[in-house]
């Protein structure tokens, strides 16, 4: 095993174990939704498990998986060891220490503030410090990624960056721009306040800084999944990538439009005027465009694959695809779910219409299709492909791996669709009990919350299968010769010369200008306004 693969594997296992723990937390929520009177069921346990599920899935599983995948892309597309191995390992240990610190605080019941940690709910300082360390660790990773690219570029002046690396560069740039917001919130507001150094914080300012980070966070998760869709999936499907230049354009558009959109999470907030919310609405819709292109290019690549296997009709290429191959089925099913989730996202972003769905179960229905399927199911599928190639062990329990993506798909259909409907009926998200003192209005949600709970059980079974395959492979997989990682080839040869799409400094500069247009003035007005801070509360 190379030094680089060992580094990737260390990150990979933290991601997998965090996923397993987070799935167990989700199981408790599913049982709660079913209103089963189990002995350990309590409001305290429910809200604690919602917090732990959110932190471990959204922040720990994703970040560690993306760090692992980034190092794989460096070592297997640039054919070099990541530059700055010491920094990379330092980042790993810092992020792991932060994860342990934050998770322990949550599990001890001292930080039941949900993963959005809106003040003036006040967690124990160890929670905020732990999350800060996770981010600092990820910054070390980002620096290693940039250094690796620079050292490769020094030796390959005119070559275009390999497509997978291009996508990961976009991921790193989005991440650096985005994390400025949450770093400002946590370092300037929450840590001093939770330590008692300052008495109060402004909760709307905190929400502005959080959502400055919170929406590009979504693209930090999604872009590596897109890298897998563009550069791994077509080959696994037995075909070729339909268009290389459009794929590159997609990643550049994400660098530009990921961040200046955060107010669409604050449509219902007081203290932010409607004009700025409308500007962010327009920018939010711009970011649909690269995802529309992705839908075409990836589907066209799959059609190419089907035709290369001999399909000739209008739709028979779909049947020629390797539906029994777990990476393929995971990604294909995740894309179907994402198509629905993407349309739901456009509804959420629709300025006026948001009032109907804001903070209802519709929202959790939505993001379990996006981050919970497009991202998580793609990462699970990629794990089946990655683990044997990194560890030199054959995949164990292959039957479970084959069934698992379909279980996830069924579970997510039941869970997500029922939550979309109860959300439209007005049921709030994140509630321990939905009876509201026997209200007849709330009683109408009942049957569908049961469907949602059944979906949760399917998802838990799917997550359990995934964990068994991972742990089985890691501990007992038959050792084989290390296999190479092969990336998808484009249908038409790539231009020999690098193009304007590789000019990352230019795109970063344009992205920063857009961020300033969207945020500098509203933030400045906000800070000028006479404001009153809030003391902290710990109602948990």
């Amino acid at each position, binding site marked *: 095993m190379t030094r680089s693969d060992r580094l990737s594997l260390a990150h990979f296992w933290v991601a997998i174990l965090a996923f397993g723990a987070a799935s167990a937390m989700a199981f408790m929520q599913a049982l709660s939704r079913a209103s089963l009177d189990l002995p350990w069921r309590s*409001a305290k346990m429910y809200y604690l498990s919602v917090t732990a599920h959110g932190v471990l899935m959204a922040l720990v599983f994703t970040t560690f998986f993306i760090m692992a995948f980034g190092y794989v892309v460096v070592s297997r597309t640039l054919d070099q060891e990541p530059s700055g191995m010491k920094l990379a390992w330092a980042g790993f240990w810092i992020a792991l220490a932060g994860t342990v610190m934050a998770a322990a605080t949550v599990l001890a019941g001292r930080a039941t503030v949900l993963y959005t940690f809106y003040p003036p709910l006040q967690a124990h300082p160890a929670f905020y410090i732990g999350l800060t360390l996770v981010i600092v660790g990820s910054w070390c990773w980002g620096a290693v990624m940039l250094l690796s690219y620079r050292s490769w570029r020094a030796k390959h002046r005119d070559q275009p960056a390999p497509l997978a690396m291009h996508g990961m560069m976009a991921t790193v740039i989005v991440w650096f721009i985005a994390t400025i917001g949450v770093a400002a919130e946590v370092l300037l507001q929450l840590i001093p306040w939770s330590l008692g150094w300052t008495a109060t914080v402004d909760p709307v300012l905190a929400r502005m800084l959080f959502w400055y980070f919170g929406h590009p966070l979504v693209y930090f998760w999604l872009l590596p999944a897109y890298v897998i869709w563009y550069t791994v999936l077509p080959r696994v499907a037995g075909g070729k990538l339909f268009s290389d*230049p459009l794929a590159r354009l997609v990643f550049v558009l994400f660098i530009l439009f990921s961040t200046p959109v955060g107010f669409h999470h604050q449509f219902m*907030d007081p203290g932010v*005027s409607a004009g700025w*919310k409308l500007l962010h609405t327009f920018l939010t819709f711009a970011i649909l465009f690269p995802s529309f292109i992705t839908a075409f290019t990836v589907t066209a690549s799959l059609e190419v694959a089907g035709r290369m296997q001999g399909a000739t009709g209008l739709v028979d290429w779909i049947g020629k695809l390797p539906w029994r191959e777990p990476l393929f089925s995971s990604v294909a099913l995740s894309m179907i779910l994402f198509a629905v989730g993407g349309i739901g996202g456009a509804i959420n972003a629709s300025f006026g219409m948001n009032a*109907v769905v*804001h903070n209802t179960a519709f929202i959790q229905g939505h993001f379990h299709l996006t981050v919970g399927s497009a991202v998580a199911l793609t990462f699970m599928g990629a794990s089946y492909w990655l683990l044997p190639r990194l560890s030199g062990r054959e995949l164990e329990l292959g039957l479970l791996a084959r069934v698992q993506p379909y279980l996830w798909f069924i579970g997510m259909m039941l869970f997500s669709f029922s939550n979309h409907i109860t959300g439209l*009926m*007005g049921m709030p998200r994140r509630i321990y009990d939905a009876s509201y003192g026997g209200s007849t209005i709330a009683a109408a949600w009942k049957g569908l919350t049961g469907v949602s709970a059944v979906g949760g059980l399917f998802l838990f079974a799917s997550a359990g299968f995934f964990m068994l395959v991972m742990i089985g492979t890691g501990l007992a997989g038959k050792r084989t010769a290390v296999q190479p990682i092969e990336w998808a080839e484009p249908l038409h040869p790539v231009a020999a010369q690098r193009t304007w799409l590789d000019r990352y400094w230019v795109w970063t500069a344009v992205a920063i200008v857009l961020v300033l247009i969207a945020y500098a003035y509203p933030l400045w007005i906000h800070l000028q306004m006479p404001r009153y801070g809030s003391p902290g509360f710990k109602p948990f």
Partner: protein
Amino acid sequence: MNVHLYEKIWMWASGLLIVAFLATITVGVAGSALQPPSHVETIDPTSVWNDPRFAKRGVSVDEHGRATVVVIAMMFAFQPAEVHVPANRPVTFRVTSADVTHGFEIVGTNGNTMVVPGYVSQFTTTFRTPGEYLIVCNEYCGLSHHLMSAKLVVEAQP
């Protein structure tokens, strides 16, 4: 850059769809003044009970029949817990929080706003259908969050 004809068609179609979405929103904003609750007004969250703007809570109706509902949200209740408003008349809700961030959602309508301490949330709506409505807190506010609700009664006018 070599772009396939089908891709060009798709990209134009996608662009047009996005423009159509935004045009719909613009028509809503310009034509029906449809916008999310975006009132900008601050208040000291530690003294909301004595603040003249929130000292008298409940419903007041002016000479034109327009109602104003003043509510304080707190862990884990709305004060007052029951309000009666007239149907087919504009009703303005003014809500603030005495402690953490809450939500104020009138189930089955598009009446929905965050309630953030230090700020006053305000929106105006008209209820066409008389009857009993459920108001819920839709932002996690502590261990009894799911118990935080109130009742709204929309009364038919003679």
